[in-house]
C-alpha cells in the first residue's frame, strides 16, 4: 500500500497537467458565450462552425499536407535505410547516416524554417544563385506555400523514418533471403512474397507516426507562412489571438478537440497495425 503511494505524485501530475487540459477541451468545446450578455451555455455551435468554410479547408489542408509528406518521407526514408543497410563497406556510412538522422529528426521548428528561408526563400542563397546564373530564380516555386512547407517537412520526417524503420529492416533475417535465393527466387519475388509482407506493418506504422508528427507541426509553418496557408494549427493560433470575435476562444477549443480526435483515429489504426507487427517480428 505504501509503495503504491510512491507512484501517486506521477499519477497526480499526469492528471493535472495532461488529462485535465484534454478533458477541459472535450467539455469546453461544447460551451458558447453569448455575444451580448456574456452568459455561457451548452452549444454545438463551435463544432458546427469548424466543419465548414475556412476551418474545413484548414483541416483538409492539414490532412493533405501530412498525408503527402508522410507517404513521401516513408518512401524516401525506407530507400535511404535500405541503401545504408546494404552498403558493402557500410559501417562508417551507416553510423554517419544514423547519427545525422538522430540530429536532423530533432532539427525542427523555428531554426529549420530559417535555414530554408536562407536557402530558397525570396532572398535565399540558392534563389540568388539560380537568378544570377540562369536568370530564372526558382521558376514558379515558392517556399511560402503548401509545396514549400512539404519540402521543409521532409527535412525532419525522412530522418524520423530512417530511425523508426531501421530496427524492422534489421529484423529481416538473412536466412529468409538465402532460402529464397536457394529456391531460385528472383529479387522481385523475394520482396513480393517475403520481405514486403513482413515489412508492410512496420512501414505502415512508421508512416502513421510521420503523419501525426506532420499534422501537429506548428512552429515551422508559423515561421514560414504566417497564416496564408490553410492549416489547423495556424487556425487555432489565429482563433486564440483574436480579441475581436466573441467565442473565438471556444472555436479554438473545438479546433483543438478536432485535432485530438483525428490523431486518436490515426493512433487507433497504428495500434492495430502494431499488433499485427508483433505477430511477425516476435
Amino acid at each position, binding site marked *: 500500500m505504501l*509503495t503504491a503511494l*510512491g507512484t501517486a505524485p506521477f*499519477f497526480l*501530475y*499526469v492528471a493535472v*497537467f*495532461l488529462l*485535465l*487540459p*484534454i*478533458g*477541459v*477541451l472535450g467539455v469546453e468545446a461544447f460551451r458558447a458565450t453569448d455575444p451580448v450578455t456574456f452568459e455561457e451555455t451548452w452549444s454545438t455551435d463551435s463544432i458546427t462552425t469548424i466543419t465548414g468554410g475556412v476551418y474545413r479547408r484548414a483541416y483538409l489542408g492539414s490532412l493533405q499536407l501530412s498525408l503527402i509528406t508522410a507517404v513521401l518521407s516513408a518512401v*524516401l526514408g525506407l530507400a535511404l535505410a535500405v*541503401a*545504408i543497410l*546494404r*552498403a*558493402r563497406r*557500410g*559501417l562508417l556510412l*551507416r553510423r554517419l547516416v544514423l*547519427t*545525422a538522422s*538522430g*540530429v536532423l*529528426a*530533432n*532539427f*525542427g*521548428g*523555428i*531554426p*529549420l524554417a*530559417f*535555414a530554408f528561408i*536562407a*536557402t530558397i526563400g525570396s532572398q535565399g*542563397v*540558392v534563389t540568388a544563385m539560380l537568378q544570377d546564373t540562369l536568370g530564372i530564380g526558382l521558376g514558379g516555386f515558392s517556399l511560402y506555400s503548401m509545396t514549400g512547407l512539404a519540402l521543409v517537412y521532409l*527535412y525532419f520526417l*525522412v530522418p524520423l523514418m530512417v530511425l*523508426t524503420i531501421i530496427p524492422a*529492416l534489421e529484423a529481416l533475417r538473412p536466412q529468409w*533471403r538465402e532460402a529464397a535465393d536457394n529456391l531460385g527466387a528472383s529479387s522481385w519475388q523475394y520482396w513480393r512474397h517475403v520481405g514486403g509482407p513482413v515489412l508492410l506493418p512496420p512501414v505502415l506504422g512508421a508512416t502513421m*507516426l510521420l503523419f*501525426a508528427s*506532420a499534422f*501537429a*507541426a*506548428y512552429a515551422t509553418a*508559423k515561421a514560414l507562412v504566417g497564416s496564408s496557408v490553410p492549416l489547423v*494549427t495556424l487556425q*487555432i*493560433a489565429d482563433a*486564440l489571438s483574436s480579441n475581436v470575435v466573441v467565442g473565438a476562444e471556444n472555436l479554438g*477549443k473545438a*479546433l*483543438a478537440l478536432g*485535432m485530438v480526435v483525428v490523431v486518436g483515429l490515426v493512433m487507433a489504426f497504428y495500434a492495430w497495425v502494431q499488433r499485427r507487427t508483433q505477430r511477425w517480428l516476435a
Partner: protein
Amino acid sequence: MTALAEGVAGAGGVAPATPIRSGRRGGGGWRFAVLGLLGLYFLVPIAASVWFTVRNRGTGEFTAEHYTGIPGADGFAESFTRSLVLAGLTVLIALALMVPTVVLVDLRLPRLRTTVELLTLMPLVVPPIALVVGVRSVLSWAPDYFLGTPLAEVFFAIQEPDLPWILVFAYVVLALPFVYRALDSGVRGADLRTLTEAARNLGASWPRVLVSVVLPVLRTSVLNAAFLTLALVLGEFTFANILGFETFPTWILRISGSAPQLSVAVSVLSLVVTWMLLLMISALDRRRGTKESA
C-alpha cells in the same frame, strides 16, 4: 514537438554488428542515386545558411559579425537565459518525478507498468497545440471563477513572465516520453532488484538506496534523459508562443523581421548545439555499450 517525437527513436539508434546482407547482386546504382540526392537535400540548406550569414551580400566580403553579434543582440541574453533556466527546472522536476516512479514500478508494482507506459507516451500522440489550448482554458479559470481565492493567486504566480513556471510544468509533460524511455531502458539493463535487496539487507533505508545505489546505476540513463529534455525545452515553440511568453525560439521569430541574418545565424548555432547534445548522448551510449561487452 515534431522535433521531439523523433528523439525517442533517436536515442535507441544502435548500429548492428553486421549488415543484413552484403550487396552480392550488384545493381546498386539506385543506392548511390538515393544517397547522393538525399545527401544534397540535407546538406544544401545547412551550407546555404552558413553562406547566408558569413557573406555580406552587398560587398561580397566575408564577415563573422552576425555570429559575434549574437551575445549582444537585443533580448538574446534574456530569452536564452530564460530558456536555460526553464530547461534546468524541467530536467530537475522530470527526474524527481520519474526516477522514483520507474524504479518503484520495476521493483514493486510491475502491474502498473502498462498504465505508466501508456500515460507517458500520450504526449507524443496529443498535438502540443491541442494540449496548450487546454492548458490555456484551465488557466483562464482563475479570472473567471476563482478570483479572490488563494488558488487564483497560485494561477497568476505560475504565469509570471520572467519565470513562467507553467511552461516548466508543461515541458515536464512533453518530456515524459523521452525521460521514461531512457530511464526504463536503464532500469531493465541493470539488475536493480538484487542490488536494492542487498542494500536493504545491509540496513540501508529506502531514500539511502535511491541515492547511493539506484542513481549511480542509472547515471547514464539519467544523463541521457537530461540531455534529451534540454534539447526539447531549448527548441520548444508552441507552448511559449500560444501562452505568450518569450523564450529562445519565440525570440528568434520576433527578431527575424528586423535582423534576418542574425536569426539565421542563431538557427545555425542552435543546430550545432542540438548536434553536440545528441552526440554526447550517443557517446554515452557507446561508452555504456563497450563497458557491458568488456
